[in-house]
């Protein structure tokens, strides 16, 4: 259980949010030219690292907006929260 600072609504309990997986995965420009392996790589393969990870989250039971978050998966420490389309505030 932890608190998430929604960029639209402010600080809310984690139970109001749903996680949307890794962020900043770029869709291939020409999907039809990809092999099955390359397409599967884009669709399914995620880093799932232990440590600082860039993630997408949705405030499902609040404003229903998607946003990005930089979270340490080992201790749930949130380093940054930023809106969709914005550049990550940390690298």
């Amino acid at each position: 259980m932890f608190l998430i600072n929604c960029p639209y609504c402010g600080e809310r309990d984690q139970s109001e949010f749903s996680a949307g997986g890794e962020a900043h995965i770029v869709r291939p420009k020409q999907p039809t030219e990809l092999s099955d392996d390359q397409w599967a790589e884009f669709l399914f393969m995620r880093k799932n690292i232990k440590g600082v990870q860039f993630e997408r989250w949705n405030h499902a039971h609040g404003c229903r907006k998607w946003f990005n978050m930089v979270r340490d998966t080992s201790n749930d420490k949130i380093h940054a929260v930023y809106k969709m389309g914005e550049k990550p505030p940390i690298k």
Partner: protein
Amino acid sequence: MLNFNSPIMDTKEYSEIKISEVEPILKINLRGKSRDFITKIGKELSIIPPTESNTSSGNENLNILWLGPDEWLLYSNNKIDLNNINILENKLFNEISKAKIGSVTNVSDHWIMINLKGKKVFELLASGCPFNFNEFKKTKGSVTQTLLNHIDVIIHNKNINDLNLFVRRSFSNHLWSWIKDSSRFI
């Protein structure tokens, strides 16, 4: 014509809490991003939709609640005449949806409004809600969308210890039962 069948039609009073379903109430969902949209709403209703999060604006007849950066809920303060239910909706639809500057959707049947009054309403909500009401209860007109007993709700702080709670129709009976049960033990 919408079919306004109220699912609860009940009022309960406990020592420090009074709960009642208030229907039929006009509720319209407004969505739009452009400046034109905000201006048009202001012109038609004489109320500017709030741009600050978790707030509301209103007059003696209507309230507009902030639901998101491009979404608002308009609802009437008083019960409406079912024969005139579509007048405001049609007016907004013609000015906004047809002009393609936003969307207007009548959600009167989608949401059920429950009024909660009394000194212990926030104790009742705190017993089933992950939201921190400390600042909320001090600010008249504040709005939140959160979970109550795991059910999505919109809560509007109308006045001191006087809240309007909106719940989806399909969950309303279940939530009503939970509120009744919980109120007995607060």
